[in-house]
């Protein structure tokens, strides 16, 4: 089974996690200003790249905290994990994320 490196708990089995889809989708700052097309984009349209994808995961059966990950959708390899609210890291490096030890503060 694939191991996923939770930023807070370290590497755990995939079944402990749930998927949250594309990351960095912010609620509209002024919802009343959006037209139908903009609402459709916010509600229904998502990126669907073949390759690195910034997405949300939650460690449901562990610390129950959300985090972001950059994952390759072809190899399913986690390229890096990072905190909610942090900038999307560049994906020029394909080195796998270094697992963080238990108890270690998330770096972001």
């Amino acid at each position, binding site marked *: *089974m*694939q191991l996923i490196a939770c930023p807070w708990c370290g590497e755990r089995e*995939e*079944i402990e996690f*749930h*998927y949250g*889809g594309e990351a960095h989708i912010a609620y509209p700052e002024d919802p009343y200003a959006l037209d*139908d*097309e903009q*609402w*459709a*984009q916010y*509600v*229904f*349209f*998502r*990126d*669907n*790249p*073949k390759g690195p*994808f910034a*997405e949300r995961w939650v460690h449901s059966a562990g610390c129950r905290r959300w985090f972001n990950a950059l*994952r390759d*959708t*072809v*190899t*399913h390899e986690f390229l890096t994990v990072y905190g909610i609210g942090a900038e999307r890291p560049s994906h020029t490096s394909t080195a796998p994320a270094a697992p963080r030890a238990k108890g270690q503060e998330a770096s972001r």
Partner: protein
Amino acid sequence: MIGPRDNAPARPSPTTTLNRASRPSAGPGDALPDHPDFLWRNPDPKPSYDVVVVGGGGHGLATAYYLAKNHGVTNIAVLEKGWLAGGNMARNTTIIRSNYLWDESSGIYEHSLKLWETLEEDLDYPILFSQRGVLNLAHSLQDIRDSKRRVYANQLNGIDAEWLEPEEVAKVCPIVNISPDVRYPVLGATYQPRAGIAKHDYVAWGFARKADAYGIDLIQDCEVTGLDIVDGRVRGVRTTRGDIAAGKVALAAAGHSSVLAAMAGLRLPLQSHPLQALVSELLEPVHPTVVMSNAVHVYVSQAHKGELVMGAGIDSYNGYGQRGAFHILERQMAAALELFPVFARAHMLRTWAGIVDTTPDASPIVGLTPVENLYLNCGWGTGGFKATPGVGWCFAHTVATGEPHPYNAPFTLDRFTTGALVDEHGAAAVAH
């Protein structure tokens, strides 16, 4: 099948074969028959076509076939990045049914089922279409309500659908466990007798063979790498085998639709996921129908050859890798055993995954795009196989006339903006 070939080396006659021991020049295999005739040519791409269909799976082949048959368009290339029908057409569980809830879905899926019923004669090719019926099981009071509602909706649309009580379920499929003494007892089922299965490869080959006979070029190993768009109008495609000009371009690339659409600057409401399936070893005929269960989460039929064919839901994350996680299969087989205790000693033989393009409302997108002469067929998610002839028919109409066919008119891209969704999450079942 063995035809004379001008440049073929002389074959040994039966007499010389019998005397092979005395002929040291005879090699191993000399006595074997020639390769059977190929079902289609394997041409190189021409510089230009009236229509380029991107995607040589079931939908692309059917679209090309109906463009020729119904609309007289034959200057067509079907471009396939791998081998013909080697994507989801080779990976589905071959279930065919039309018992969807909404009128819009009934239209296109029932149109497809009607075409399936005469497809073998139409293609003049065996496709092993077997109308063995499908049971959609109900396991809770809410399941019963939803199922009956769907049965009534189907009947209003002229689709054969009925509600079966548990004892009637057991008459249709004796190996389903209808004991009340299980975690999710079978409380009844919807039944569509005209539903069934077909041999997916034969379906693809049948369409390919007929399309080829019309002079359509089926071009394999030809991946589209770009779309040539000038002033909002598509002019052709760039491929790994050179540029090809096209009057019209029809996209039918299932899991890779987002990647292709991005070449036209379009963003689609699609997410591509792995969908896994598996087969057992060959067994005696034990399973006479198709059984699907939303709540227990599996669908099972038995192929003509004897394998049990099973599938379940998609892997949760986006993926293009044509493989999924093992724990999904484990859960799927646990579900199958819950419904069919008789399978306890069956062995899983092979597993695989396809890439399915899911939409927010579990209905497809078939129609025009903001780019002129660029047409889109995608979003069939987990259930595109059953639609193969129906969507081929309607998509061909859309491409040939520039207007959607009435059956695919509701399935526009802009329904996600207008809000006119066709929510089939219920009827789409565990997967279609």
